[in-house]
């Protein structure tokens, strides 16, 4: 069994008095695809945001690709180079063109020369099927296109792990499919390690190696997709599934 690329041990986090993550223990193997689901407020977004230090955990340890996540800025920056993130609201940079959005990280963080960075960026834009938008600004694109640019932007950093924080939740229904297709292709073609917080259960069934259910800060149940959806063990899991699969 390969060394886990992500190890979370007894991770606890509080927002003031509110205990948002309770004793999280999670190991993610390389190339594994994990879908995290759960009701609103269960801490799933907080969980993955702790993995690239957008949130800080107060107790326990998180080790990403052999580096422990602490307050040490060098550690944090090293980890962020290996972990890419796709946000619910895209977070593209509106004052830069699509191509500039993609090449920013490679040029300034990975220190690649501009020509090489642009070539790679164009190839990723083709992978997400919007190469013709390279010189447009994000504000001129549709939501689905913007999210695909965001995915390409993270991919340009050649990360080892991709985190997705509800990537399709802010999209119109007809655009959800185009983004999910890109994510499926990513999983199938590249073998990227993916941790995805989503409500798209069809996606989970198709792509996930493991589905994790969270409620009130705890991991309640985790299983393979078929076992999870067809044979949920915990009462809370059954309740959640009955609410979303209608």
């Amino acid at each position: 069994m390969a060394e886990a690329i992500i190890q979370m041990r007894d991770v606890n986090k509080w927002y003031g008095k509110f205990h948002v993550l309770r004793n999280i223990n999670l190991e993610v193997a390389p190339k594994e695809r994990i879908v995290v689901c759960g009701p609103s407020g269960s801490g799933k977004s907080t969980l993955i945001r702790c993995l690239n230090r957008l949130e800080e955990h107060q107790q326990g340890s998180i080790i990403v690709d052999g580096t422990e996540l602490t307050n040490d800025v060098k550690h944090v920056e090293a980890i962020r180079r290996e972990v890419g993130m796709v946000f619910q609201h895209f977070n593209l940079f509106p004052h830069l063109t699509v191509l500039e959005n993609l090449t920013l990280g490679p040029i300034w963080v990975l220190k690649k020369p501009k020509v090489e960075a642009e070539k790679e960026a164009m190839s990723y834009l083709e992978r997400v099927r919007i190469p013709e938008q390279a010189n447009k600004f994000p504000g001129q694109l549709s939501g689905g296109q913007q999210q695909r640019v965001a995915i390409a932007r993270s991919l340009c950093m050649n990360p080892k792990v991709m985190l997705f924080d509800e990537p399709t939740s802010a999209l119109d229904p007809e655009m959800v499919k185009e983004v999910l297709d890109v994510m499926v292709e990513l999983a199938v073609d590249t073998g990227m390690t993916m941790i995805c917080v989503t409500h798209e259960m069809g996606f989970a069934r198709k792509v996930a190696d493991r589905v994790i259910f969270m409620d009130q800060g705890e991991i309640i149940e985790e299983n393979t997709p078929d076992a999870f959806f067809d044979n949920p063990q915990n009462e809370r899991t059954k309740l959640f599934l009955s609410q979303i699969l209608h």
Partner: protein
Amino acid sequence: MQNTIHSTPNMGLDAKIIIGLRDRFFSSIGNSILTVLSVWLLLMAIPALFDWGFTRASFYANNAQECRAAGGACWAFIGEKYRFILFGTYPFEQQWRPLVAMLLFVAMLILSTWRRLWNISLLALWTVGLATAAILMWGGIFGLTYVENSNWGGLPVTLLLATFAIALSFPIGVVLALGRRSKMPAIKSICVVYIELIRGVPLISLLFMASLMLPLFLPEGLTIDKLLRALIAMVLFAAAYVAETVRGGLQAIPKGQFEGAESLGLSYWQQMRLIILPQALKIVIPPLVGIFISMFKDTSLVVIIGIFDLTLAAKSALADANWQGFGVEAYVFISLIYFTFCFSMSRYSQALERRLSVGQKR
């Protein structure tokens, strides 16, 4: 009375004009009253102004009495005094030097607005340009007689103070704004104290303090040039206001932008320089340019510490015993000069805003 006639495409042009005028100026009782009032005010003011400024004005006169005889504006006063107002006590025969230096300055400012020059060549341009201007103003080499800067005056002094005050206060203000938002308590406190102290006092008192108190703090024998002291005071003053304005812009940036930048692994300064500050500064261009325009006009306050800027030069020109009582002409003259510069800054900022909004609907 209900007007039911509206403009339609089939009407002739004259009908459309009349209806357009009616809709704009006479669409209601209140509107009609305002229109009549405005026209009356304009009829009172403009012919009188035109009469004073052009019809009865004397453009050429040998002395004050001749000039006043016509009863209108005495532009001959300006003709007589303009060199003094513009160049102050700079030696008369050498005044071509500040003229060339000023033209050079203005040329550099105009060239700096050209976006294609926004790289290292801009630095080169200003280094060479400032060196040339310095040689022209001070002299002492290349056969030019030496003119110490206490003899400089008028518009070159105003331009110099304003340009350097604006250029230096801007980066300092940005750093202060970032410092005030810092999580490190020491840095944050220093920035807060500085900003609140400076904002609590008028520029005049800062100029006084710089002029009188600064020499007391310096070691024996070391003096700072008076012009430099005034410049320091103005830079410190403007930086506080720039800081607060930029801080407002920073607050307007959604948290997602910071997170997007962080998730790419950019360092703090890379995030600020590449992502956050470009967006924040663009948002606050209107109030920022307002601060700069105010600073340009605030240079007139150096009158208080005896520096010969454009305003003091105008004031001194009025002290001439042979040409008494032409205050209006003098101040109209310098107002036009101030207006030219300030209005240009305002127009440039609007053009800049338009150019930076390409592709982003706002």
